[in-house]
């Protein structure tokens, strides 16, 4: 009994020898055709997909300062002391790769601020910067004092599209530039740590100081063991000063999460993952704007007001950096 040839249509009319010769190329062609159909894109789709590749920078060392206080020094007045203006930062310092500032993603130059031929005319700092607009509403910003914008970008007569890794300009070797990311679709400044790769950080953040700020009195925590401080019951603003130290040879991933546990109950658990771009400035940790309203004396972050009732309390403050390292401090006190 003859075996039925199941591949009836293709092999009809072919000899056994012919079938053996034709089969491998046919299988190969069919496989290629199937994969092409599966992943086929129109040119527009290909362009869109290229532009949709997410932002990312890779380097051996970053320093993320998102949500970290900084002081903007003011000119010295004729009388009195200068009043420096505190604010919370939104960027990360990135080393220039071989002296080049590279684009974190494919996008279009949106705004250029470089060396001017004519003096005056616009408000600006001493830093040059370039903003790139990416698909999805992301805008990445690159700024530094000695940043020399790429002549090719600066000379473009019409908005040009740059690929990821494109050199936006140069810096002196070993210099760093400030990298920031704004999500215009959501109105949020995004922690740049999300876009930084190769970041090694094994150094745990440290809680340097915990303070309860009251109307009539303030108490700096004494976190030594077996010490129970006495304070008056009442409403206090919880203030924290913490730092994420540099991991030797690695990066500063930056403080990312703050958690307060009072008597075993989580009373606050907030992240520095983004800051809302509000009408009156930047709102971090889900609190109000401007960012200066979250900064107390000596660079403390103000974490909101809480009523401390009479009794013995244990306050644990945990800080986590973006890499997941944790540091904490425990404070025992008695309120009367």
């Amino acid at each position, binding site marked *: 009994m003859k075996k039925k040839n199941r591949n009836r249509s293709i092999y009809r009319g072919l000899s056994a020898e012919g079938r053996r010769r034709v089969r491998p190329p046919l299988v190969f062609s069919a496989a290629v055709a199937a994969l092409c159909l599966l992943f086929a894109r129109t040119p527009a789709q290909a362009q869109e997909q290229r532009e949709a590749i997410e932002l990312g920078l890779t380097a051996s060392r970053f320093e993320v300062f998102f949500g970290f206080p900084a002081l903007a020094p*003011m000119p010295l007045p*004729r009388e009195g002391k200068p009043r420096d203006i505190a604010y919370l930062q939104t960027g990360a310092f990135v080393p220039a790769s*071989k002296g080049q500032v590279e684009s974190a993603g494919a996008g*279009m130059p*949106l705004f250029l601020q470089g060396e001017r031929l*004519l003096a005056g*005319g616009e*408000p600006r*700092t001493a830093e040059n910067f370039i903003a790139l607009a990416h698909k999805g509403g992301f805008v990445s910003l690159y700024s530094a004092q000695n940043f020399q914008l790429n002549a090719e970008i*600066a000379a473009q007569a019409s908005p040009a599209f740059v690929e990821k890794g494109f050199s936006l300009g140069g810096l002196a070797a070993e210099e760093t530039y400030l990298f920031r990311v704004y999500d215009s679709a959501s109105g949020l400044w995004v922690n740049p740590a999300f876009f930084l790769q190769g970041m090694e950080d094994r150094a745990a953040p440290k809680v340097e100081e915990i303070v309860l700020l009251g109307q009539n009195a303030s108490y700096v925590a004494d976190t030594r063991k077996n010490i129970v401080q006495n304070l008056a019951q009442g409403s206090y603003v919880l203030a924290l000063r913490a730092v994420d130290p540099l991991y030797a040879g690695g990066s500063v991933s930056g403080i990312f999460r703050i958690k307060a546990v009072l008597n075993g109950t989580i009373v606050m658990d907030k992240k520095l993952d983004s800051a809302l771009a509000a009408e009156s400035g930047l709102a971090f940790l889900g609190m109000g704007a401007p960012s200066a309203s979250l900064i107390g004396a000596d660079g403390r972050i103000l974490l909101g007001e809480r009523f401390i009732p009479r009794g013995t309390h244990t306050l644990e403050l945990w800080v986590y950096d973006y890499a997941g390292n944790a540091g904490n401090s425990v404070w025992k006190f008695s309120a009367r």
Partner: protein
Amino acid sequence: MKPRSRARSRKNRFGWAAVGFALLFIALSSQSLGQNQRIAVASDQASNESSPPRPPQDYDYAAGGRSFVIRPDQQAVSEIDAAGALLWTREFATPLTSAAVEGPLSAWGFLDGSIKIIGETGESLSDLHPAAQGIVSEYSCVYSVALARNGSGIAALYGLNPQYFVFFERQGQGYKTLFARKLEGQTRRAQMAVFSGSGSYLAGGSADGLILYDIARKRESLKLSEFFSEKTELLIEAIGGDSFAFLLANGQKRFAGLIAKGVVEAFFAVPADSSSISVAEGELKVSAKGRELRYKVERP
């Protein structure tokens, strides 16, 4: 059935192996496009020393007889008085890209395409979004802003793809678009725009040329197009009621000029190192390195 020859067997094995490798290659390359993968950028070894946050450096912006200090991240402005004392500070949602000062009012343009009018004590008086006024571009950003006396009008160079030069007139508590010119060229750098002293005319730089707008007659014109490109820089200063003086830089070339009632009255080359202009006592002064050139326009 005859046994296959060794050569034929090798051919078939090679063929199937080639098919297998091809399929594997296609599958892997397609997968890398299908997923959002981060492409590695060449890394560089930095030193092991810790580098503390860079101390910020402020910059003074002086306009309209007032002094402002711009925060290092360009996201806040502080006004200081003549004695250096702080008057007010205001933080913004995105970095500022342009500004104009008129009397006690100031207008600030931003990277997100919004324009804010600030009062004498730093209070926000008005928030203007050109996109909400029907000025639609693919990308929002403000490249220049001008403020008329008492805030009665705002002009701006706005957007990319396409770029517009727009004039908004105040109506009640808000602003309404009175004029919008869609531009052929686009610039991505801050430009200048100024209202005349009387508020009757508006002049602004763009990649297409010097835009002049007669507000009363609602008539616009484009001047000196051949001298403008995306790289052109322009300084404009209002003179008297209806005139402007300007300094134009296009590469190594510098030109100065005067515009009166919407007409370019004078246009002439100045030294290549000219960097600023000022107008006083009927003279146009052009500052170059180590010297000042004075020009007086004589009208017949």
